[in-house]
């Protein structure tokens, strides 16, 4: 018997229009803690979903031990002893710890009544085994911290005889002390012979607990090595180092003087962030998942509870308590999820575009149809929205055109600042180029654009300056002349030491 716990060979997975994984090779030894590392969209999640039976690979083979297997459902994966701790916890918060551990497998006593005592006792022993000695299994899960809830999920996996535990960014929402506890627990599981695949963006944690690291980049295998041998610089180069295709338009305008500044932005996920914006500038905000790049803007605009020290616009101090204040001040946010937050999909293009200014168009219960049509027509032409009629539902538009409709909606309010959160997510290359061109046209009119993006090429090629965030803190500002992938990634991922 070899010491391989899990091995994949030549895994390939395609989604319409995208190759999510291509020729992935990856091996985990028994009793090893193996880190899976890569930028957002590198294919980590897809790989996990294949290992846990949610997706089926288009090509390639999976071996457990040395047996070739096909993991075609979540149940099969579990039967092989693979279990996943997802980022969103899957606990019933209204029930007790013991009930959650035995959810769906309640031990029965007489008359099919649940045997509370047995359930309590078994839970007690499981909690003991992972070092949660003081916890009463009868306690409700909603009274636990996020970290403790994660432990309960781990207990549940253990009660099912898990051999391979996959943890998808388990430390993303934990405080430092809780992270320590979790890492300790991972070490003790390793001693018990459990194999762990650990996904994290935090290098420091990876170097503290993992034995090996495998890096994915753009759906391809980028390299693997043991933690003791792999140098920091090599790691950064594995994560970046892609060649740029010539997809970016030429920048014609220049940015002007500083006209907006915000300082001391604070919220639950953001710690003391300050920044400045120039007229006609494309300002980038980059960070890996969980770095708080969207949360900075949400706190600034009063969407999340938080405080902002000082906001100055055109030399005057202003206060923003809600998105309504922001729109009045001329700050518009095109949110990350255009389907959920940006557009009312069941309504027409016309309806969506004039929604923010509808108060101005309706006089005495009558819509000024002529003015409405003029506005919709001119903005749609300017943004080149392709549609048969402005009366068609936004639901039926392509992703790129939906994104243009979102831009149109905010441009009609004549903003001074436009915040774009992941404007090119999920749209194809041609549509991306269109959006890039529009971004340059908009800054050409003197509007300041804040571009929040997790796509490195976008940030490097479009932005004048880039603020980099890590774990809710600003780790640096990179100017146009110094914009390289290595510079940004080093700031985004942090050092190895404490």
């Amino acid at each position, binding site marked *: 018997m070899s010491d391989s716990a899990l091995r994949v060979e030549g895994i390939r997975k395609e989604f319409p229009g995208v190759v999510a994984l291509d020729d992935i090779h990856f091996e985990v030894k028994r009793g090893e803690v193996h880190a899976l590392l890569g930028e957002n969209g590198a294919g980590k999640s897809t790989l996990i979903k294949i290992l846990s039976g949610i997706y089926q690979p288009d090509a390639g083979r999976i071996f457990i031990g040395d047996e070739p297997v096909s993991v075609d459902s979540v149940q099969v994966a579990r039967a092989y002893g693979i279990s996943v701790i997802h980022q969103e916890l899957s606990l019933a918060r209204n*029930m007790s710890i013991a009930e959650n551990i035995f959810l769906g497998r309640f031990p029965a006593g007489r008359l099919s009544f649940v045997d509370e005592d047995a359930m309590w006792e078994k839970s007690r022993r499981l909690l003991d085994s992972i070092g949660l000695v003081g916890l009463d299994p009868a306690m409700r899960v909603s009274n636990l911290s996020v970290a403790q809830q994660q432990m309960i999920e781990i207990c549940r996996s253990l009660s099912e005889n898990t051999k391979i535990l996959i943890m998808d960014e388990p430390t993303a929402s934990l405080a430092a002390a809780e992270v320590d506890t979790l890492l300790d627990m991972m070490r003790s599981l390793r001693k018990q012979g459990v194999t762990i695949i650990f996904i994290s963006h935090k290098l420091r944690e990876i170097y503290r607990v993992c034995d090996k690291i495998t890096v994915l980049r753009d759906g391809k295998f980028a390299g693997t090595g043991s933690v003791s041998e792999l140098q920091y610089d090599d790691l950064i180069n594995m994560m970046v180092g892609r060649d740029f295709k010539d997809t970016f338009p030429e920048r014609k305008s220049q940015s002007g003087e500083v006209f907006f500044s915000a300082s001391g932005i604070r919220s639950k996920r953001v710690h003391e962030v300050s920044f400045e914006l120039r007229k006609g500038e494309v300002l980038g905000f980059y960070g890996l998942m969980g770095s708080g790049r969207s949360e900075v803007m949400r706190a600034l605009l009063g969407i999340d509870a938080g405080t902002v020290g000082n906001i100055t616009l055109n030399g005057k101090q202003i206060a923003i308590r809600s998105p309504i204040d922001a729109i009045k001040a001329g700050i518009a946010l095109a949110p990350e999820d255009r389907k959920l937050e940006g557009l009312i999909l069941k309504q027409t293009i016309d309806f969506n575009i004039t929604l923010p200014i509808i108060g101005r168009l309706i006089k005495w219960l009558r819509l000024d149809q002529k003015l409405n049509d003029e506005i919709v027509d001119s903005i749609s032409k300017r943004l080149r929205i392709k549609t048969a009629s402005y009366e068609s539902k936004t639901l039926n538009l392509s992703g790129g055109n939906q994104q243009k409709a979102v831009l149109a909606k905010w441009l009609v309010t004549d903003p001074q600042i436009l915040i774009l959160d992941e404007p090119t997510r999920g749209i194809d290359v041609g549509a991306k180029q269109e959006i890039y061109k529009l971004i340059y046209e908009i800054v050409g009119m003197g509007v300041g654009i804040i571009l929040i993006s997790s796509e490195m090429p976008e940030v490097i090629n479009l932005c004048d300056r880039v603020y980099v965030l890590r774990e809710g803190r600003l780790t640096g500002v990179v100017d146009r002349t110094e914009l390289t992938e290595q510079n940004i990634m080093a700031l985004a991922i942090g050092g190895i030491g404490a």
Partner: protein
Amino acid sequence: MSENTIPTRRRANPILAYINHNAGILIGLFVMCVIVSTIQPNFLSSKNMFNIMRSISITGILGFGMTMCIIINGIDLSQGSVIGFTSCFCAWIITDVGAPFWLAIPLSLLAGSFFGFINGMFLANTPLPPFVVTLAMMLIARGGCYVITRGNMINVDASFGELGNGYLMGVVPYPVIVMLVIFVIMFLLLSKSKFGRNVYAIGGNIEAARFSGINIRRTTWIVYMVSGCLAAICGIISCSRITTGQPTTGNALEFDAVAACYLGGISYMGGEGRQGSTLLGAIVLGVLANGMSMLQIPWYVQNITKGIIILAAVFFDVMRKKKANAR
């Protein structure tokens, strides 16, 4: 709580736990009783107490079924109409068909439960929302009442009235006995059985329940079948109580059941609620109605008061939870 002491299995005294869990409503009930009995000492007579219990027996029985529906994030609006249908069917089968009582009762039960079966069938197997399915069933069952009775009343032999009007040992009304027996069964089902845990799991986090291998379809189906069956039992009791089958019987009673659940502190987000609390909610509604009648408050004011009290009860409950979450 310190992290390193080994906890021992704590067995809370069930009575103390009950009082603790329902403290708010118990205080409210106590205050109400004190006010009414000071003005009207007759309120506290055992005859009046049993009157109140009989008046809430239907609300209580419906409430036990409704509790489970609301816990799984559903609702059963058809209960009142199913009562009407069952009572009309019962009267029809006794008077027009001539079935003996021992046969009429199980047949009526079966006929009424059929609506719950259909509700459950749709809600377990299709993504239709409970509000729509049970609303449609409410209309269908009510229509059925008129079909059976052709819009008239069907009188039943007076001896059938014993169930609804009689007393055990001359003291305890039979409907109260029925309610208490059902309460015990429903209590055990929801808080002790595996089925009950599955109900709470589905209400708390349906995805977690699914990944844990809980049969969501079957559980949902059973919940609505139980609700329909309990409504059918209420229908038979109603028929016996007035010894007629009337097409308007049971109109809007499902809302009293919902009110009892919410007064008992059930969570509007699902996943929480207990039969004992629903029983208490029904008792509060009964005491409220009885007390206001004794104080000769006109019935139209009674409804307004009822509405305000329900609003207040849920308001305080939501505020309390919000505070607990803010911690």
